[in-house]
């Protein structure tokens, strides 16, 4: 990698010890500011939360060390596991649908030659710049039977209106909002990876008589593996932390989304409604641990299969 090439001999002798010390210290000066902020606002809070997760506030005796009690409690907490299973089931469908769409859009735009592709690329990416609260409000109003167009449209074709905010549709409706928000972001990452595939590979395949579909299957998709891996892992982590969309939609669909709908909603509720910060910390770490295990399990499985 980068090696510091030493200056010519005579020069080193004249550039004093001071400048060599300075150069040895330089990297720490560069990484220092970030590292301090990282330690203060990321590492320290995590350590304090981790520490806190081993304590409990008792009415008698105040704060006491309870070992793994908070974690044991979480393992028996059906509300927590319901919320965790809900987002995992949700994620399996939503992440697959979203990344399939992202890949199709990326390949499509990459193959297009008309100027329209720039408009498409920018347009599909733009929702990423829109706050999830606003995305959830827009779609939430569109879903609602009072403001949204669905009853009008259903009337026009003479079918009963689908109630997208009802309990049976709510996961689909949230999935649509998340997909809408992030399909373009993932498309850009995959599109960027496509740019690194040498055109000569396709030319060779073309000479061998491979169809476009065969080229996609045998050249494009295998070479997209790292990008697909990255986007999947980020999506898994994001899904487990689902918060802003259900929190915003909750106001429009109180009958479908309760305060333990996703693990993050539940943790926030434990912390600030039940005021049980230690238990909330334990629950948060379990969420993080699940994200970690699922991401690694996914990477393990997908790297195993092809070797």
């Amino acid at each position, binding site marked *: *990698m980068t090696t*510091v090439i030493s200056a010519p001999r005579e020069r080193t002798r004249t*550039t004093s010890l001071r400048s060599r010390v300075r*150069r040895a210290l*330089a*990297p*720490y*000066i*560069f*990484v220092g*500011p*970030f*590292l301090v*902020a*990282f330690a203060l*606002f990321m590492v320290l*809070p995590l350590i*304090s*939360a981790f520490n806190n997760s081993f304590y409990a506030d008792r009415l008698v005796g105040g704060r006491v060390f309870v070992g793994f009690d908070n974690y044991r409690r979480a393992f028996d907490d059906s509300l927590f596991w319901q919320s965790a299973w809900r987002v995992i089931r949700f994620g399996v469908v939503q992440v697959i649908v979203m990344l399939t769409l992202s890949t*199709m*859009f990326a390949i*499509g735009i990459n*193959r297009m030659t008309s100027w329209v592709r720039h408009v*498409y690329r920018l*347009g*599909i990416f*733009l929702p*990423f*710049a*829109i*706050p999830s*609260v*606003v995305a959830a*409000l*827009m779609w939430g109003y569109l879903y609602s039977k009072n*403001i*949204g167009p669905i009853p009008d449209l259903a009337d026009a074709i003479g079918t009963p209106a689908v109630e997208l905010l009802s309990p049976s549709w709510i996961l689909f409706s949230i999935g649509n909002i998340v997909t809408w928000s992030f399909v373009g972001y993932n498309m*850009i990452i995959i*599109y*960027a990876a496509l740019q690194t595939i040498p055109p000569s590979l396709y030319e060779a395949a073309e000479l061998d008589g491979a*169809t476009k579909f065969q080229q996609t299957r045998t050249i494009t998709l295998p070479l997209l593996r790292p990008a697909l891996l990255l986007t999947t892992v*980020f999506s898994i*982590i994001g899904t*487990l*932390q689902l*918060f*802003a969309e259900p*929190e915003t939609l909750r*106001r*429009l669909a109180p009958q479908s989304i309760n305060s333990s709908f996703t693990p*993050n909603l539940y*943790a*926030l509720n434990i*912390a*600030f409604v039940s005021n049980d*910060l230690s238990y*909330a910390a334990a629950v948060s770490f379990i*969420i*993080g641990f699940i994200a970690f295990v699922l*991401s690694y399990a996914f990477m393990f499985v997908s790297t195993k299969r092809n070797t």
Partner: protein
Amino acid sequence: MHALRKVKLMPIVVGLGFVYTLIPLVWLIISSTKSNTDLFSTFGFWFSDDFQFFENFKRLFSHQDGIYTKWIINTVFYAFTSATIATIFAALCGYGLAKYEFRGRELMFAAIIGAVMVPTTALVIPLFLIFSDRGLTNTPWAIILPSIVSPFGVFLSRIFAETAVPDELIEAARLDGATELKIFRTVAFPLMKPGLITVFLFALIAVWNNFFLPLVMFSDPEKYPVTVGLNNWNSQATIASGSAEPLFNIIIAGSIVAIVPLMIAFVVLQRFWVGSLTLGAID
């Protein structure tokens, strides 16, 4: 013939995706021209006779003594301050990681990347405790300080420094007697600039769109950013529909004001972020 069919199919698929993207935005713009009554009584994807566009924005900026203006100013202030500092820190750190060999370098980089996995609750709740102990909740610090840490920014900056700053230039500047910081300022920084615009843009979005952190940190409505403010209005508008204030038209107007600045930034800076993200994939 087979190839011909494929070539035509893909643009249609992408075109449909583009239309799908636009659906809620078109609805938002059409709805911003309607009164509350018309929002409920007219078809969502067409205009009503009563054109209320300007009145809606007037109402938005006068509702609750014009608190929305404060929310926008807060958002801009929180986002620009944090994104600027986050970009400087990330640029310095990425450059340091890319251009110097030192002990613990790879471990440090791994820790920074691992930080992406940390669930927001695990971080936000203890941050709230730490900040409330020091009386920092309900102050701009509560959102600015945690937001200056951008692990993704460091990741990108390292790649930009590796690909855009040649070692020879650094060596030449050293022979000329420049100090290490001066080399960064005069040689590396200008070369990393296009990439750093991307880092800035992503940091800006992260703060502008943040919801969880400000929701927890701010109880004083005067300090809200737009995300928390709009969510607050939405809950007022929907609680017990009988007594609810008809706020939907101003929430819609407020949503437009909240999303337009970042959309413009993305369109204007397109050539920077598309180029930089492509560069990121090469490595």
